[in-house]
């Protein structure tokens, strides 16, 4: 029978806490930036301009169809060789996760916008509102309500995705855990602890998403 020694984990609690804070902070930044990118790319998908539609499509599919780990390694190791621009690990990680998440957000945002009845934008246009105001004042306020649950789900996935940045030595929760495991030879306790932390952070969020989904189902 394996002898668990969680007291070792306890003595490294500040490292775990620090790693959790970095993971949470990283998630918040890439969710926020990713939503901005996703909004632009999602709206570009519906643009009259073929160039805007085509380039946003290319971006979305390129990032959606490439494994995140490959993207992270590519941006960090291959991009500098090709362009001569060397980004530090954190910048590469934030940029890649933002663009990766943004490509998924873009699809959610596009689908949310097209789900709004055409009659709504026609009514806005008929009042003399320019297309931009119709989007801002009529379509988006209704579409955002429908987008919130899938956007939150995507953000939960994004939270878990951040663990991959440890391959670039960004000191997130997983990376700091790896250091502790190497130092203490207590991999079992350390990785169990990490799994529990992810679970504890995400559990309340999934409850919120569930509620939002139910609320939406009722209001429809």
């Amino acid at each position, binding site marked *: 029978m394996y002898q668990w020694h969680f007291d070792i984990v306890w003595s490294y609690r500040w490292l775990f806490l620090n790693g959790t804070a970095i993971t949470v902070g990283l998630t918040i930044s890439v969710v926020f930036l990713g939503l901005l990118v996703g909004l632009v790319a999602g709206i570009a998908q519906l643009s009259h301009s073929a160039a805007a539609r085509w380039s946003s499509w290319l971006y979305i599919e390129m990032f959606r169809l490439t494994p995140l780990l490959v993207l992270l390694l590519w941006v960090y190791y291959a991009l500098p060789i090709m362009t001569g621009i060397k980004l530090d690990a954190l910048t590469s990680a934030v940029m890649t996760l933002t663009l990766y998440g943004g490509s998924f957000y873009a699809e959610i945002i596009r689908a949310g916008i097209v789900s709004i009845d055409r009659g709504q934008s026609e009514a806005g246009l008929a009042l*003399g509102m320019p297309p931009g105001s119709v989007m801002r004042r009529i379509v988006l306020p209704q579409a955002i309500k429908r987008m919130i649950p899938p956007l939150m789900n995507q953000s939960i996935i994004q939270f878990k995705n951040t663990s991959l940045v440890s391959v670039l030595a960004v000191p997130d929760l997983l990376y700091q855990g790896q250091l502790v495991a190497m130092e203490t030879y207590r991999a079992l306790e350390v990785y169990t602890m990490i799994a529990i932390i992810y679970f504890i952070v995400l559990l309340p969020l999934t409850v919120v998403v569930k509620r939002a989904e139910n609320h939406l189902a009722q209001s429809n």
Partner: protein
Amino acid sequence: MTPKIEISGLRKSFGALTVLRDINLHVEPGQVVALIGPSGSGKSTLLRCINLLVMPNSGHIRVGSDSFSFGPGSKPPAVMQQARFRSSTGMVFQHFNLFPHMTVLQNVMEGPVSVKKMPKAQAVSLAQALLAKVGLSDKVNVFPTTLSGGQKQRVSIARSLAMEPEVMLFDEATSALDPELVGEVLGVIRKLAAEGMTMIIVTHEISFAREVADRVLFMRDGLIVEQGPAREVIGNPKEEATKVFLSHFHTRG
């Protein structure tokens, strides 16, 4: 008197499907024109061309002092020009298309506030006055979902009137309503007619068309087949197609 609305040589196709062939019509100021015809004859498309929700392939449209030409050699109006033009042509839709995330009052205020930049307080009193006019003073602060179809359509008429349009276009404003709610909407349209609003009304309410409209246009296959004073076209149609179409209504009473 120069006509308020003047349309000539209007054509529209969707891909291979020609929907409007050669539409010519004019509406005098204060006149009410009813547009009738079988399903698919192009009534909605014509109405939507008149406020540029659909861009014609060729022809001329003039409403008041704004005129546009379409077809080879003429540039379609720019986005902002379209918006300014639409702000003076009111349109009422079959399915109301009220904004569900706004209260009744906010629905009516939306045009004046966001298009005309009218101060909030002024827009509130304008909206309240219009809602009183359509008999909905007691529904000012509710959301559209709680209203009956007839009430929704009256709100949507008030919303259009808030822009103080030069003309009003109605696309089957009563077709989605339960029979007992049709009257209250027709009542509002009747009132607008009495006030001298220039209107084009697409309708299947033939007796209403005869009562309120000065002129009736009968459309079939993208053409205006017959037109004239309401009593004549409805009471004594000359064209065979008009007779056949109207016979469906007479048998229903």
